């Protein structure tokens, strides 16, 4: 299996978790490396994804500048987890606002570490 397919498979694992709506692996400049979505495309989700894409460069700069491994945004109806993947990527997980962020963070951290090994 190629590296990108392995990454895709890890993203799909995350998407299977309860309350997760989308998972995107961004490059730190905001371009998408790989992504995985459920089939329920709502305008809210598209709006939040656009927000993520626009803000990944700023968020990744903050993370690198302050040596942060994880940043969480809790919007009114969506939670977003940004996990740093080495110096080049940001694993972004979108979940609805009832998600258990502690449990989600455990698995996302694990996946971030696995994906880093593939890259």
């Amino acid at each position, binding site marked *: 299996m190629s590296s990108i397919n392995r990454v895709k498979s890890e993203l799909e*694992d995350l998407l299977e*978790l309860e309350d997760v709506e989308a998972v995107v692996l961004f490059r730190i400049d905001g371009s998408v490396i790989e992504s995985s979505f459920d089939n329920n495309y709502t305008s809210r989700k598209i709006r939040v994804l656009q927000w993520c894409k626009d803000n990944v460069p700023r968020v990744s700069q903050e993370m690198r500048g302050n040596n942060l491994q*994880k940043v969480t945004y809790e919007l009114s109806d969506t939670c977003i987890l940004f996990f740093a993947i080495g110096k080049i990527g940001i694993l972004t997980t979108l979940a609805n606002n009832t998600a258990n962020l502690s*449990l989600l*963070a*455990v*698995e996302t*951290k*694990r996946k971030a*570490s696995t994906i880093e090994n593939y890259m």
Partner: protein
Amino acid sequence: MQVKSGMVSNRSLKKVVKELIDDVILEIKGIPDFLLIAFTSKYKRTDYKRALELLTQETGVKNLIGGTFPAIGVQNEVPTTQGGAAFTFKGSEIKVQRPIIYKNIRTKKKKFITEFPKIYNTTKAKSKIAFVLSTGPKLQPNAMEQLKLLDSYPAIRYQKMFNVLGSGLEWLLGKQGLGTGSYIDELLNYLAINNVSELIGGATFDIDLENNYQFVSDFIYSNSLVGTSFSSDTIKFGHSWTFDKSEKTKEYSITHKLKSGYIQKINGERANNKLLQIMDVPSDIYNEFFEKFSYANALYLSGIKEEDGNYHPFMTANHPKLKGVVSTLPPSKITEDPIKAELFTQSGLGIEKSAYECVNKAAEKITNPKFGIFINCANRLLIAGDKIAEENKKLAERLGDNVPFITLYSGCEFSIFSKKPKYTTVSIHGLVAGK
């Protein structure tokens, strides 16, 4: 003695099992003498069944025991909330009792409490310990709504009558496979009286209080207890428990309570508001946050001081629907008098520190650890979040880098230490085997 443990994280349980077989179990030369299998709790029952069939067929293992948990950890890995782990060993130094299953354990306790001590005591080996996994908390989605009855005037005024009604209700729920884990407190007391001197165990659990399963061989059960025991003349089994005792903050008095652990009043006032007040949590913020959830609660750690000066930890759960507070105080700790309790804080660092304290104490008479089994409260996982990997590093630091261990994040934790039962929540119980 060969010991292996490993973990696989994947959305497909079939893939998880195949990798566990290839990378962990088949690394043992010959058929393993013991296999502990733990899966996370969100797969389908049919998937678990197929996984167990594959495991028993491919490995030929007879002594397979296991269950489902919100998360699982092993040495040198970040714990997973989506996957499975295997812990296995083979060697003449440890004799493993063939695992036994007790169905409908909440309502049919007699067979277990009469049969299990006899089985445990068949061996006269120098060191022995029972290992048990039992069904943990499972409630209906409207459980909080149903508990409102316990806030009524008659429930507070006629506590003895409601205790009788409550035990009847618990029995009826138990028949349906529902209820908390507090029934284990009673089982432990019986076992200790009947000469089961050492035991460690935990409750299978789902964080959303839905289905949890127990395994023996390729059989899967949902309301049962599975158990075995290890005995040896050359290997010692050290075990211990503790909890995050970071900081005590405030004292309070539980003045009105029921045997089920439901706290109606604290310091003579309705428990929900009073506890929030003691904790300095504004009730409007709390209500706004938790009202949308049927289950989610403000979970806080408290402790009651025991005669030996140590604390017994328990969890309180506030919910906006209730005037009282749900607690995990076991029946044996609920006395006639007001109970003096103290609030404790919890932190990621406190969780790491307590994990080290547990393993250190369990291993204090062992110079050459062979393996460890840890039963760790799922609530500690929620507190630590993605920092939970640090806790496992502390276990590895004390055991040694290459010593295999498994951590099961459970619904409640329990042990018997020299015939003294200990049923707790928000805690970590650990077994270390070695020379």
